[in-house]
Structures are given as structure tokens and as C-alpha cells.
């Protein structure tokens, strides 16, 4: 493998290096320590610029001239790199200003130029010779690759970053694989939602994206154009149809007006014709009526003359004929009645002889049945029922009387004490048990409280004695102390004083401890309790004295009281029932029922008692029954046989009484009929006289002969009938023609003639004004005229119908127009322009989709290609470097399909995160070396470390240093750092400023 070594780098006017600055490098690990911002990274950029060119830029933020040109009027803007490849020295010079390059090889003490010219990294026309020469010498011609692979400018990766960093190195652009595909997928997702079906994402998105929105807008625009184009185009069509329909309607309306006018004239003509005919008929009728009325007038005059021969005629009534007939009938009736009267008078004399045979219905009975009314059987039956009920009621009353007496007896004999006791005593007896227990309990409680108060008083009295003990103790102490302390003649005084003082102090000290006030209080309490005990005992004693007689008579006092109260309640109930009985049956009589009077004034006993009493007086008038008891005794004595006999007798009485009444009625009727017949005969005579008086003139004319009078009357009557008939006919004609006289009728006839003539003239004038009507005058028949008229009517109806249809069509068209005009169609010309723009947009988006999909697919496939080609090789090379750096032969580095790194140590797979920091750094360096080997084929290029170990602790740095030392044995390393402690890691880089 060829080894490349950088010997010297000279930079002029490049970044902070205004003057020519030369950096010299040796084999192994070179270390350049310098403070931050003094140009360490610029050195790396300078090497890059020398090798690959410095783009012409004005943007100071990117790699280019603007960024690295020194602005302090440098002597130049250029650089030189001297390097060795397998022992042969090369010199590369470049003007950064114009990218003029010169590559020379050292031969025989001097450099011979191999390639020269312009090498602009962004030029369309590239300097291929230079680039190829450079690639031959350094193995690669891409600045990006060189920077990414051989310049470590970032901190060493942490565990989770390692795989990403490896992918970045392998991508060729410093980007992880996933980021690349994710970037494309993201871009595609922004354009379309159908990324799933394009194989870019796992599924399609839900929301439409730019492409779908544009397509949707296109579809909507198209649909709107389609719909609105038809709408717009139809609008004018409808307008024209409407216009035509309206014109047609005007024409049709005119035709209809003409037809209707003609029809109207027809109607007018017909009306005149009808009026004329009617007038003519009226005239004809009037003329006939006038002639007939004249004839009748003459007939009336003739009859009047004939009537003059019957002077009596007007004096007799109109009903003379009937009077004559009545007269004849009366005469016949009078004859018949006379015969009948004679017969009746003969019959009425005979029945009076039989009168003595009858003795009346009552003759054979013991009871005055007449007193019981027309139906004595029913009365007896009724009284028998009432007697049964009365006996039952009577027994009920008697029972109540007995029960009340028994109740009174018991209360009087057994419970006299209760009956006589006052209410207070009874109240005490009622609660005897509970009150006795209460009073005893009160006494017991009062006694207990008294004993307790006594005990407490006793305790306090004992403590009161202690106070005196304290006083004595104080006095003793007061005497003893001076006895020991004092001396001399005053000793005794001191003792005495001490005793008094001690006693006083003891007394004063005992007073608050044993207060006499409390003792007095308790004494009062004991007295109070004593009073309460006495009161309780007295109350108990008084109660026992009060109930003592009862207790002596009734050992079970409470039970006896309950019995007595039960009897009292029952007695009250019986009294109430008996009072009810008396009120109901005896009309409120308060004495014994047996003595209740039956006929006392003002006493309203039950009706049954009065009925039975009255009955008893009828059937046994001899009995004196004055009271209810007597009545009930009389009733109780009546046997069923007695009742049967009474009923039989009553039935016989009823039969006899009925026969007697029938015979009396018959006689009465005969007398009445005779009287009536006589009266009728008298009435007939009277009527005959009256009738004769009414037609006397006629009878006189007939000589009193009714027969002749009848003939005369018939002749007169016929004459009258003729006159009446003529009069009626004449009157009917006048009434029919609505006139009062013959003269008026004649005048009316003249008017009718004139009217008919007027109608005729009007019709002639109408025909003259409208010649079209002339044929009507000569029309064959009215039927033909009617047919013709109907035809014209049908024509009018047809025209009207057509007009209505036209109105309907106009309405429809108007509605349709309104509907269309109510819409707001899009502007088609604008929409077409918009559609064209949208289509262009859609095409561009679709192309972009296609391109992104293709890019995604090809990148994915490229990744697979790359894996297939390089994965195992990279793993092998990395393993070799890792073993070398760690001196571990049993370690193997593996890369999976996604270039995820793992280390197999002694057959056990370990992820980078499981490695120590040092081992992980060694692994990363090994990976960088492996990738460098992969990229630079058989060349060993220098590695530049630009402060990548910033955050490493001492232990980690020690391992990195060992790794670099191992590495430096085979490859030139350049370590740039601001940390002075790194200076000891390798050979310091000499920096020389100036030419």
C-alpha cells in the first residue's frame, strides 16, 4: 500500500495567515497546539483548498474565496502543499485567486511540473488532467469525501450516534441513509397523499396534499364548467322560447277576443230572437184573452136579467138547499123519538116494585167491613203482616229494657264505690299502679340524695378539723424555732410571739385549703334533701289513704276499675239503643213502652201501632185498647185461625158489595137515557122552527111546501152557478193578465204588439250592422242554429284552452329562467384559463412525484447495492484496525444490512453502547480507518484530528492516545488542539511565518 505524507503546507493571505505561513509535518503523530480562533481549522480548510480548489463565492458563510480571503492587503492569495507518496516528493501550488494550479514532482533535486493550468472546482470545463493526477496520487478527487473521511472535526461520537456517523461517512455526503430517504419521503408526502401505493411509505395519508388538491380543483372547475356551460347556453334559449311563447299568446288572445265577440253577437241575436218570439206569444195570448173576456162580459149581463125573475133568491142563505134537507130529516127524527119515548116511559115504572127484596151487603156480617174501605181482604192481610212485625219489634224493645235493668243492678250492687266516688278519686284509681310506683321511686331517690349529701357533709366537717390541726402545728413550729434560735431574757417573748405568729399563719394557711363556706353550703343541701324526702313520703301516704277503701274492697283494683268502666260503657250503649227504639217506634215517648198511649195528641208513634189500633177497634169494637201494652197483648192473643176466619168473612163481604153496586148502576143509566130522549125531542122541535125561519121567503113562495120549495131553490141555484162560472172565468183572465178591467186588458194587448215589433226591429238593426249574422235570419231550423252556436262555443273553449296552455308554458319558462338566473355561473373564459394553469401545475406536480418516487426507489436500491458491495469488506477492514488498536485478536466488528455496528468479543455480540468509552473511541477510529481504506483504495492518507477530543475525560483520552500512537506507526496523523496537554502526545508542528 502506498503511503502519503504531508510534509509542508504554506498558506499566504489565507484566512488569518496574511503572511506566508508554513506548517511542517513529520512522520507519526504531529501535534499543533494553538489557542482558539488562531487558525487551526483554517489550516484544514487550506489543505482542502490546495487539493480541491477554492470556489469563487461572495457568501462568507460557505467554503469559498469570500470566506478565506485575507482582507489586510496580503502579499498574495495562494498556497503550497508538499507531500510524499511512497517516498516521492510532490509539490502542489495553487493561486486561490484564480485557481491556477501547478503539480510538480521532485526529481534530481528540483521539482518538475507534471500538470498545470486552471482548476476551478465549479467550472463547466474541468481540468481533468489535474484531477486524474491528483486521484492517482491521493486516491480520491472529492473534497467532500476527503473532508468527511480524513478530517475529524467533530467530537467523537457517543454510543447512540455511532451508527449514524458511520452512515454519514458511507453516504458520500455526510448524511445518514435514513435521513436521505426520509427527506425524499417527506418531500413526496408534501405533494401527494398516495405515498403508500408508490412504495415510499407504509400507507397512504388521509388528507389530500398539493397534487390531490390541484386535481380536485381541476375536477371541480371542469364540473362547474360543464354544468355552467349548459346553464349559460340554455339561458338564451329559454329567453327566446319565452319571447316566442309570449308572441304566440298575444296572437291567440286576439283570436280569442274575436271569437268571443262573434259569440257574443250570436248570443245577442239569439236573445233578440227569443225576446221577439216571447213578445209575439205574449201578444197572441193577450189578444185571445181580450176576446174571451168580451164574451164572458156579455154572458154575465144575460144572467143578471134572468135573476130578476126570482126576487126571494138574494134573501135566502146560500145553504138553503142544505136547510131544506135538514128540515126534512128533522121531521123524520121527531117521529122516531116520539115512538121511543112512549116505550121507555112504560119500562121505568116496573123495577120500583122489586126494591123491597134487597137488605144491603152488610146485613149478615159481625164486623163493620165498610169501615175498612172497599177492599177489606187486602186490609186484613196487611194488618196480619203488620201484626207479625209489631210483635217482633215489641220483643226487641222489651229485651232492651231488660238488659238496661240488669246493667243498672250490677253497677249498683257490685261497684257502688265507683258509682259514688268523685272524679279526683276515680282519676287516682285509674292510674293506681303507675302513680304508686312513681311516688315510691321519688321517695327512694330523695332518700338517696339526702344520704349522699350527709356523707359529703361529714367528709367536709372532718377536713374542717384539719384546719385547726394546721393552726396548732403552726403555733408549735412558731414556738420551737425561737426556742432554739433566741437567747436571753426575750427568749420567752420570742417563743410566745412565735407561737402566736405560727398559729396565725397556720390558721390563715388552712382557710383557703378548708373553706367554711363550702361546709355551710353542704349543710343547707342536706336540709333541703331532708325536706324533699318528707314531701315524697307525705305524697305517698296521701295517695295510699285515698285509694285505701277501694283497695280493701277490690284486691285487684286495676281489674275492678276496668270491669266497672266496661259496665258503664255498656249501660250507656243500652240507653242509647232504647232511646233510639223509643224515638223510632214510640215517637219519643219516655216512659215504659207498655204504657205508651196509642191515641195521645201530639205523640207521633210509629204508624204501624195506629193502623193496628184502628184495625182492632173495627174488628173488636167492644175491646178497650188504650195503651201499647194492651194492644200488644190483644195481638199476641190472636191465633192464625182467627185471622183466617176474618179473611173469609171479608171476602164474602166484598162479593156482596160488588153485586149491589152493579144493579144500582143499571137503574141509574135507564133514568138518564129517558131524560135525554125527552130533551132531544124538544131540541128537534126548536131546530125545525129555526130552519123554517131562515128560509121563510122561499117557503112562502112555495106555499109552505118543502117539496116545491126545493124545486124553486134548484132553479135559482143553477142560475147562480152559471153567473159564478162566468164571473170566475172573467176574473181569471184579468188576474192571469194582471189587469183589473177589460179596458186595461185591451191596452196591455196593444203594448205587447208594440213590444214584439220593437224586438223585431232591433234584430233587423243588429243583422244590418253585422252582415255575418244575415245567414241566421234565413237559417233553416233552430236546431241548425243551435248546432252552429255550439260549434262556435267549442272553438272559443279550444282557443281558451290553448291560451291557458300558453300561459302555463310561459310560466314554466319564466320559472326556469328565474331558476337559471338565480344561479351564478362561473366565467367560462376565466375558468378555461384557470384550468390551463391548474393543468400545468398538476403536470409539474406529477412530474415531481414521479421524480421523487424514482429517486426514492433508486436510492433504496443503491443502498442495497452498496451493502452488497462494501458491507463485508468494511467489516473485515474495520476488524483488522480494531484488533490492531485494541491488541485483541478475538474481537470482530460486524455490520448489518443497515450498517448498524456491533462488536463480537470472544464470540459474544456487543453493541457500541455496551463498550467502554475508550473501546468505543477505538471502534470509531477503526471504522474511520476502514472507511478511509474503502474510499482511498490502496493508499494510506494522513488523518487530521481538529480538536475532536474536547469532551473526553482523562481515562478516555489515555486510551485515545494509545490508539493514535498505534495508528501513527503506519500513518501520518496531524492533531490540532487548543489544549496544551496534547503537546506531549506527539511531535510539535513547527510553524514559520514569512517567506
Amino acid at each position: 500500500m502506498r503511503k502519503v505524507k504531508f510534509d509542508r503546507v504554506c498558506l499566504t493571505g489565507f484566512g488569518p495567515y496574511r503572511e506566508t505561513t508554513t506548517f511542517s509535518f513529520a512522520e507519526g503523530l504531529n501535534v499543533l497546539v494553538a489557542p482558539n480562533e488562531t487558525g487551526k481549522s483554517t489550516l484544514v480548510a487550506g489543505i482542502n483548498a490546495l487539493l480541491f480548489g477554492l470556489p469563487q463565492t461572495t457568501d462568507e458563510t460557505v467554503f469559498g474565496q469570500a470566506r478565506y480571503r485575507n482582507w489586510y492587503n496580503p502579499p498574495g492569495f495562494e498556497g503550497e502543499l508538499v507531500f510524499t507518496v511512497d517516498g516521492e516528493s510532490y509539490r502542489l501550488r495553487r493561486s486561490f485567486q484564480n485557481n491556477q494550479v501547478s503539480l510538480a514532482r521532485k526529481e534530481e533535486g528540483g521539482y518538475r511540473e507534471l500538470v498545470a493550468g486552471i482548476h476551478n472546482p465549479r467550472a463547466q470545463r474541468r481540468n481533468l488532467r489535474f484531477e486524474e493526477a491528483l486521484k492517482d496520487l491521493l486516491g480520491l478527487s472529492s473534497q467532500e469525501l476527503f473532508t468527511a473521511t480524513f478530517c475529524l472535526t467533530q467530537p467523537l461520537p457517543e454510543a447512540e450516534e455511532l451508527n449514524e456517523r458511520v452512515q454519514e461517512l458511507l453516504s458520500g455526503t455526510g448524511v445518514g441513509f435514513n435521513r436521505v430517504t426520509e427527506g425524499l419521503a417527506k418531500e413526496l408526502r408534501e405533494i401527494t397523499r398516495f405515498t403508500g401505493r408508490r412504495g415510499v411509505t407504509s400507507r397512504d395519508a388521509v388528507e389530500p396534499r398539493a397534487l390531490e388538491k390541484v386535481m380536485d380543483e381541476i375536477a371541480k372547475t371542469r364540473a362547474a364548467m360543464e354544468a355552467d356551460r349548459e346553464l349559460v347556453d340554455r339561458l338564451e334559449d329559454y329567453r327566446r322560447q319565452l319571447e316566442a311563447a309570449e308572441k304566440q299568446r298575444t296572437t291567440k288572445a286576439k283570436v280569442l277576443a274575436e271569437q268571443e265577440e262573434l259569440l257574443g253577437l250570436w248570443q245577442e241575436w239569439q236573445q233578440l230572437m227569443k225576446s221577439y218570439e216571447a213578445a209575439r206569444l205574449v201578444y197572441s195570448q193577450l189578444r185571445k184573452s181580450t176576446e174571451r173576456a168580451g164574451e164572458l162580459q156579455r154572458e154575465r149581463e144575460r144572467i143578471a136579467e134572468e135573476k130578476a125573475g126570482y126576487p126571494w133568491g138574494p134573501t135566502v142563505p146560500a145553504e138553503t138547499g142544505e136547510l131544506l134537507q135538514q128540515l126534512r130529516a128533522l121531521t123524520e127524527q121527531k117521529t122516531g123519538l116520539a115512538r121511543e119515548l112512549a116505550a121507555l116511559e112504560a119500562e121505568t115504572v116496573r123495577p120500583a116494585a122489586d126494591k123491597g127484596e134487597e137488605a144491603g151487603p152488610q146485613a149478615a156480617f159481625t164486623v163493620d167491613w165498610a169501615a175498612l174501605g172497599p177492599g177489606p181482604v187486602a186490609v186484613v192481610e196487611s194488618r196480619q203482616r203488620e201484626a207479625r212485625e209489631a210483635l217482633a219489634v215489641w220483643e226487641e224493645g222489651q229485651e232492651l229494657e231488660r238488659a238496661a235493668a240488669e246493667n243498672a243492678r250490677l253497677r249498683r250492687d257490685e261497684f257502688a264505690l265507683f258509682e259514688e266516688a268523685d272524679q279526683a278519686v276515680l282519676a287516682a284509681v285509674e292510674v293506681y299502679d303507675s302513680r304508686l310506683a312513681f311516688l315510691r321511686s321519688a321517695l327512694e331517690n330523695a332518700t338517696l340524695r339526702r344520704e349522699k349529701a350527709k356523707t359529703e357533709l361529714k367528709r367536709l366537717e372532718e377536713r374542717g378539723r384539719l384546719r385547726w390541726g394546721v393552726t396548732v402545728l403552726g403555733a408549735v413550729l412558731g414556738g420551737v424555732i425561737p426556742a432554739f434560735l433566741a437567747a436571753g431574757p426575750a427568749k420567752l417573748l420570742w417563743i410566745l410571739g412565735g407561737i402566736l405568729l405560727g398559729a396565725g399563719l397556720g390558721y390563715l394557711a388552712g382557710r383557703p385549703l378548708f373553706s367554711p363556706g363550702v361546709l355551710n353550703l353542704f349543710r343547707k343541701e342536706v336540709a333541703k334533701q331532708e325536706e324533699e324526702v318528707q314531701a315524697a313520703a307525705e305524697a305517698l301516704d296521701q295517695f295510699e289513704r285515698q285509694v285505701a277503701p277501694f283497695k280493701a274492697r277490690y284486691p285487684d283494683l286495676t281489674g275492678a276499675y276496668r270491669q266497672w268502666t266496661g259496665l258503664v260503657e255498656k249501660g250507656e250503649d243500652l240507653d242509647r239503643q232504647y232511646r233510639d227504639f223509643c224515638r223510632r217506634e214510640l215517637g219519643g215517648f219516655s216512659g215504659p213502652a207498655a204504657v205508651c198511649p196509642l191515641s195521645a195528641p201530639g205523640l207521633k208513634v210509629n204508624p204501624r201501632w195506629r193502623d193496628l189500633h184502628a184495625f182492632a177497634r173495627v174488628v173488636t169494637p167492644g175491646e178497650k185498647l188504650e195503651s201499647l201494652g194492651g194492644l200488644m197483648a190483644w195481638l199476641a192473643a190472636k191465633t192464625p185461625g182467627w185471622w183466617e176466619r176474618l179473611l173469609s168473612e171479608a171476602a164474602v163481604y166484598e162479593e156482596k158489595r160488588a153485586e149491589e153496586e152493579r144493579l144500582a148502576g143499571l137503574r141509574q143509566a135507564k133514568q138518564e137515557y129517558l131524560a135525554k130522549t125527552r130533551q132531544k125531542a124538544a131540541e128537534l122541535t126548536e131546530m125545525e122552527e129555526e130552519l123554517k125561519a131562515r128560509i121563510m121567503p122561499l117557503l112562502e113562495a112555495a106555499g109552505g111546501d118543502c117539496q116545491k120549495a126545493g124545486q124553486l131553490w134548484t132553479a135559482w141555484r143553477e142560475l147562480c152557478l152559471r153567473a159564478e162560472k162566468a164571473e170566475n172565468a172573467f176574473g181569471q183572465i184579468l188576474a192571469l193578465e194582471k189587469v183589473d178591467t177589460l179596458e186595461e186588458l185591451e191596452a196591455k194587448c196593444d203594448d205587447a204588439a208594440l213590444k214584439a215589433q220593437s224586438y223585431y226591429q232591433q234584430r233587423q238593426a243588429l243583422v244590418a250592422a253585422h252582415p255575418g249574422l244575415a245567414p241566421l235570419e234565413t237559417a233553416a231550423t233552430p236546431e241548425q242554429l243551435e248546432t252552429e252556436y255550439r260549434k262556435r262555443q267549442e272553438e272559443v273553449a279550444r282557443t281558451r284552452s290553448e291560451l291557458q296552455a300558453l300561459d302555463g308554458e310561459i310560466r314554466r319558462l319564466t320559472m326556469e329562467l328565474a331558476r337559471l338566473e338565480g344561479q351564478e355561473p362561473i366565467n367560462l373564459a376565466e375558468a378555461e384559463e384557470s384550468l390551463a394553469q391548474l393543468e400545468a401545475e398538476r403536470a409539474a406536480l406529477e412530474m415531481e412525484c414521479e421524480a421523487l418516487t424514482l429517486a426514492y426507489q433508486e436510492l433504496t436500491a443503491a443502498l442495497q447495492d452498496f451493502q452488497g458491495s462494501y458491507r463485508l469488506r468494511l467489516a473485515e477492514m474495520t476488524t483488522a484496525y480494531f484488533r490492531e488498536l485494541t491488541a485483541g485478536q478475538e474481537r470482530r466488528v460486524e455490520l448489518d444490512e443497515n450498517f448498524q455496528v456491533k462488536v463480537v468479543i470472544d464470540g459474544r455480540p456487543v453493541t457500541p453502547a455496551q463498550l467502554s468509552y475508550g473501546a468505543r473511541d477505538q471502534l470509531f477510529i477503526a471504522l474511520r480507518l476502514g472507511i478511509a481504506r474503502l474510499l482511498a483504495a490502496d493508499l494510506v492518507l494522513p488523518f487530521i484530528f481538529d480538536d475532536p477530543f474536547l469532551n473526553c475525560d482523562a481515562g478516555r483520552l489515555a486510551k485515545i492516545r494509545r490508539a493514535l500512537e498505534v495508528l501513527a506507526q503506519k500513518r501520518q496523523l496531524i492533531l490540532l488542539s487548543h489544549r496544551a496537554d496534547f503537546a506531549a502526545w506527539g511531535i510539535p508542528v513547527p510553524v514559520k511565518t514569512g517567506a
Partner: protein
Amino acid sequence: MTPIRCLHLADLHLGWRPRGWGGREEERQQERDGLLQKAVNLALDPAARIRLVVIAGDLFESHHPPAGLVAQVLTELNRLVQAGIQVVTVPGNHDELTYHDSVYRQYSREWPGLLVTNPMPERVGVLSVEETPCYLYSMAYTGGVTKAQAMLADFPRGTEAGLHIGIFHGSLDWAAGERSLPLSAQGLATAGYDYVALGHLHQHQVKTVGNTVLVYPGMVEGKYLSDPGTGFFTLVELGAGSPRITKMPVTVRPFRRLTVEVTGLTEAALREELEKMADPEVVAELTLKGVFSFLPDLAGLSDWLRPKFYYCEIKDETAFVDQDLLEKWAGEPTLKGAFLQRMLKRMAAATSAQEQRVVYLALAKGLMALRRGKEHAEG
């Protein structure tokens, strides 16, 4: 016959508003809508001696323009009428008469001058201009009524002495659809009009068929970059002999089509080049040609250019990125290299320009993703 000077207008498209002009849409609309006032001012200039103004369609962008704009237009046209200048207005396809809410239906009564509404060609009026009778023949396309499925070739013309002028808004000898009103140039020539005032095409065109001169004045004030406008009014002098057409320049928004050769330019150099062309008053279409030696970020470039022009669009007509460069990258033992190998093969196998374009775009997208991923990572 006294010569008559006529201002021939068409396709003013008043009320048009651009889309996506970076907030300048309304400003641009108002600017464009002022064009009629400029035309009226010209017509009222005594020096111009204009006696007749013909508007051959598409006065408005839409059939239902805003009421304010309509009022403005009526005011301007009334100025002409009050000055004794005859005005003839023919609806076009944008301001089509068909719509029930068409401006010409709504304002037909107060429309100044002669408003054409008949759906088929006929004589629409006789004007006496400079004591010369002018017989006008025209029509207003009306959907559903105008029979224009086939090209219109039958046009009426009277035989009276005087000028016979046809005014139509349609496409000459081009069947672009019924609403574009296809007109037969030969038919118009056969009718024997002295002048045919046309509208619809936005480029200025003068065509002579037989003795008949047919003129499209074109759209004076541009709309899109692809439709930039003529920048002049068309004046016609009618009288004895052939009509004389004069172009009268007018101040309008300048539209420029600029082409930049990107070959050999770095990104910075390209920007420098574009900077030189910048003009904030210009509506520009920047066409990029040549071969990029870097991966262009056109979206970013577009953002950068926006404040430098009144409005601009970039049209990328560049060829593929440098083939040698691509092949060099393809040789790298990296993912980029593997991707480029595949893409170069695809590009070589592409059978159509469209496919090549897609593959190129995919290549650029892929490389951009590789680069952007780095930017994201650095970010």
C-alpha cells in the same frame, strides 16, 4: 371622403387580478384597470383627432365585474360620448353577453355609445362620423343562440356609399371552440368590409386578405409572463384607400424575458449575474439555460429574487448537471456513488425527453436529499 381616425381597442381585460404575486395582486389590478383612462385620455387629445373608439371584446376580464369598476368604465366612456366621440362596444368571450348577470345586460340602458347584443352577424348601426356614414357590422356571441360550431363565413354588408366596418371578437381561421368564435378571414374579405376590427388574440396582428385589412390590436397591458402585452394602442385612419395603422406607445408595466446562461457559474456567480438584471419595476421571466455545475436550489433562488423584481418567475431550461461531474461522483465507493451509477444508467436508457426530464429531476432530487440531509443534520 374625410379620413376618420379610430382608436381600436380590444382585450383590455379590466378587473383581472394576478394570483400569487407576493401581495401585489391588488396593486397590479388597479394599475391595469387604469388602462382605459389612458386610452380615453388619448382619444380626447385633440391632436389625436380620434372620432371613433371601437372596443372589440373583452373589455372586462369577467362578465360580472365589480360595480366600482363598471362605474369607472362608464365614466370613462361617457367622457368620450360627451366629447362627441362615437363609441362602439362589443362583448367578448370573457365578458360574454350570455350570462344573465352579464355587465352588458345589467347596464345595457345606460351603456354609452353603441352596445352590440345581436347573436349573429348583422348590421348593428350607422354612425355619421365626420359626415361620413359608417356602417357597422358586428355580433355578440351568445351561448345557445349563436351558431358558431362551424367557422363563421357569411357576413352581411350593405351596398351604400360610406365606410363598412366589421367588428368581431373571435379567432381568425382558427377553430378554437365555439366560444372563441371562429371567423373565416376569407368570409370577412368576401363581405368586402373596409376595415375589420378584431379582438381575442393578445398579440398585435395585421392581416390583409384581398382588399380587406383585418387587425388584432392585441392586449396593451400584460397579464401573465406568457402574455406580456403590446405596450401600445392601435390607431386606424379610415378613408379613401387602405386603412393606415399606427401604433401609439403607452406607459405600461414592463415585462422582460431574461435569459441567464448558468454554465460555468458557481451559485454565487449566478446570483451576481441575476443581481445585475434586477429591476423592481419589471415583471420578469428568468430563463436559466446551460448546464449547472452545482445542484441548484431553485426554490431558494426564487425567494431570493422576489424583492428584486416587481414580479418574477424562474423558468428552468438548463440541461443536466455536468455529465463528467456526475460520472466522477458515480465512481465514489459511497451511497451517492451507488445512486448515481443507477441514475446514469436510467438516464442512458430513457427513451423520451419526458422520461429523461423525470430521471434528471429524480437525480437532482436524490442528490438534493443527500445534501439537504446534511443540512438538516448540521442544523
